[in-house]
């Protein structure tokens, strides 16, 4: 019986692809799921805690709105870069990637100023959980965004070395997915905070 196994094994093809998605891309989606769970935990904790009363009410600084617009536009430039890479349009790719990186950093700086604005209206990290939650949620998002910025810079450098092109899109696709996710996550968090502050 063993012999027949070996004969069988000799003439089979390498394993068929069981899922058309690249394993690394799939792993990225799973990573995104775990981030979603973490923010789901924090936002539900926010709601549960808010329902118990003793909750500081304040207006969200407008700078958060500006930051949101900046981040959404970085998503648009990212997508322009992605389409350009798919069409081997290297000039547009480089320009769009540079803009994405700049907008991403502008968002992070903006978030920092937003924290300063919060301190000005006397919403502190240490104090009523209403304020603490805002700092934790935006801070944890900013932390993940930094990982996204690092990813963007890696792709930016490979774009300048002409390593991103229509035949080598896996990493570019992953970077685009991750960046769109982080932007979408912030839009969700912003709307959530707007509705529940």
């Amino acid at each position, binding site marked *: 019986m*063993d012999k027949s196994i*070996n004969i069988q094994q000799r003439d*089979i093809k390498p394993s068929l692809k069981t899922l058309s998605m690249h*394993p690394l891309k799939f*792993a990225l989606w799973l990573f995104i799921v775990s981030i979603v769970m973490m923010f789901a935990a924090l936002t539900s904790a926010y709601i549960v805690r808010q329902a118990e009363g003793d909750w500081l009410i304040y207006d969200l600084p407008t700078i958060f709105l500006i930051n949101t617009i900046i981040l959404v536009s970085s998503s648009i430039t990212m997508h322009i870069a992605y389409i350009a890479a798919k069409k081997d349009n290297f000039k547009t790719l480089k320009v769009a990637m540079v803009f994405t990186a700049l907008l991403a950093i502008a968002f992070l700086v903006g978030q920092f100023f937003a924290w300063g604005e919060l301190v000005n209206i006397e919403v502190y990290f240490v*104090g009523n959980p209403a304020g603490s939650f805002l700092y934790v949620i935006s801070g944890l998002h900013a932390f993940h965004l930094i990982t996204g910025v690092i990813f963007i810079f890696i792709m930016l450098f490979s774009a300048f070395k002409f390593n991103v092109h229509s035949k080598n899109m896996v990493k570019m696709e992953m970077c685009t997915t991750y960046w769109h996710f982080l932007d979408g996550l912030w839009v969700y968090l912003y709307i959530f905070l707007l509705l529940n502050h």
Partner: protein
Amino acid sequence: MSTATEVNISHEVHHDEHHDHEQSFISKYIFTMDHKMIGKQFLVTGIVWGVVGVLMSVLFRIQLGFPEANLEWLRPLLGGWLTEAGKIDPEFYLALVTMHGTIMVFFVLTAGLSGTFSNYLIPLQIGARDMASGFMNMLSYWFFFLSSVIMMSSIFIETGPAAGGWVVYPPLSALPQAIAGSGLGMTMWLVAMVFFIVSMLLGGINYITTVINLRTEGMSFTRLPLTIWSFFLTAVIGLLSFPVLFAAALLLVLDRSFGTSFYLSDIYIGGEALPNMGGSPILYQHLFWFLGHPEVYIVLLPALGITSEVIATNSRKPIFGYRAMIGSMLGITVLSFVVWAHHMFVSGLNPFLGSVFMFLTLIIAVPSAVKVFNYLTTLWKGNIIFTPATLFSIGLVSFFISGGLTGIFLGNSVIDIQLHDTYFVVAHFHLVMGSLSIFGLLAGVYHWFPKMFGRMMDEKLGYIHFWMTFIGVYLIFFPMHYIGIAGFPRRYYSWTNFDAFSSYTDLNMFVSIAAFVTVAAQLIFLFNFFYSMYRGKRAPQNPWRSNTLEWTTPIEPGHGNWPGELPKVYRWPYDYSKPGAADDYIPQTVPLSSTPESNLDHEQELAKQEKLANTAHAKKQF
């Protein structure tokens, strides 16, 4: 069997040895990216942690069974943790139970069980060369190792390790003033857990990706061994629940070190109010148990999966209700996320909400019972071969029944008011979660040891180990039910201060002695494990005459697992004692077209298609 095959295999082994010579010691044994070596790393680290965790339980069993004992002889080991009178310091006692829980739940039964067998078996049983990302897999182990180092060193610091119970509820765990263990020890606990979570997420993402993307040709989801199904669902549960623990731990870190008030409010220490206002300790409980309950199934499911495989193989029968097994595991996975508040019935939870959670909790009895009946019906009238692995699997089913029944008691919110935080709970989860999962781990080690190390473990020692452990576990945990029904709370340092419980002194002494004997029996296992690794009998190609793919690799598989091409799968893994077949097992790699004598009606159709595909393939080649 043919000599040609053996020659072929030995040639391949030789080839692989040659290949391995090129690897340095460091890249082969330490920073390895080979899933098999990573699995073994998890196993050995898990065993080391198991020894530490079990020794801690010996220490507190001495205190509980023999409160008058003089432990002066342990002073070289425990030093300042003994009081002047030579007894265990009460705060150290709390640290012991805390660390015992943490170590056993996370480091032994999560990392040691799912880390070992998911890593080792997933690529071998689905026919893949390695995990989706070997590098992430290596990171997973080394984050776990880093976490282990931090947790282990917290045991040796002056203020002692975390002591607020393995659930580390605030405010006890949040305020260093509360107990010595809530100082540096607690900080290290949290840091260690953060690395642990990172490790489990890296591992889990890898397991899921590998199972979905890297199955070999023909290995559809309905042909996966149940082990793989259980590891897959375990990873899904971990992926969804560990980030929530991360969020809970993060807020606790901020409360402890940065002065926020997520969990703290209205606390007075020594008559002075703390500045923290507006926090809610219940919030922590919700977040913690949203991980904590799924964690139970992270520990449980791999053990159940291993049992399915071992019982089917050694009963020489197909697993009864393969699809029902998958269905019940899926049911358990989903339900595990909607029952967390049954740990909080006495926390001031809304009684209506309590009944909802009670209802959902009791539903878990349905898939669990399906699994139990399927195990029993698989064993029923089988040609059972009693290997040590079989015995441990049957023992596991026994614990699933006896420990599961008390779960129905505890799931009822009304009965829980009496039983909450008593030894009844301790008895319940040590049977159904602790012992069951340890038995799954041991069954897995006995069953796959020949694959892991190319040698057999000694069977006689295995039998002695099993019977001493099996009887010992019942002698330890059965009496605890009575103590719990009588109302004695868990985690208490001493029984002797309460008249109501003095009648249980003998029973406690009995439990402690049973515990010491059971622990001693584990030394037999340790000896057997390490001795057989070097001196055991050489393993044959397929020692249990099993169907799954890992037994088609060389006896000691090298890099890439299969020297030639990947095996192709033609059937499900449970074709044992198929009517008409020559042997009582047909491996998954045997095509249906070569077994016309045993094919079922629908398989005849598949066999015809196979033949057509083969001729088409042959025509293409010429």
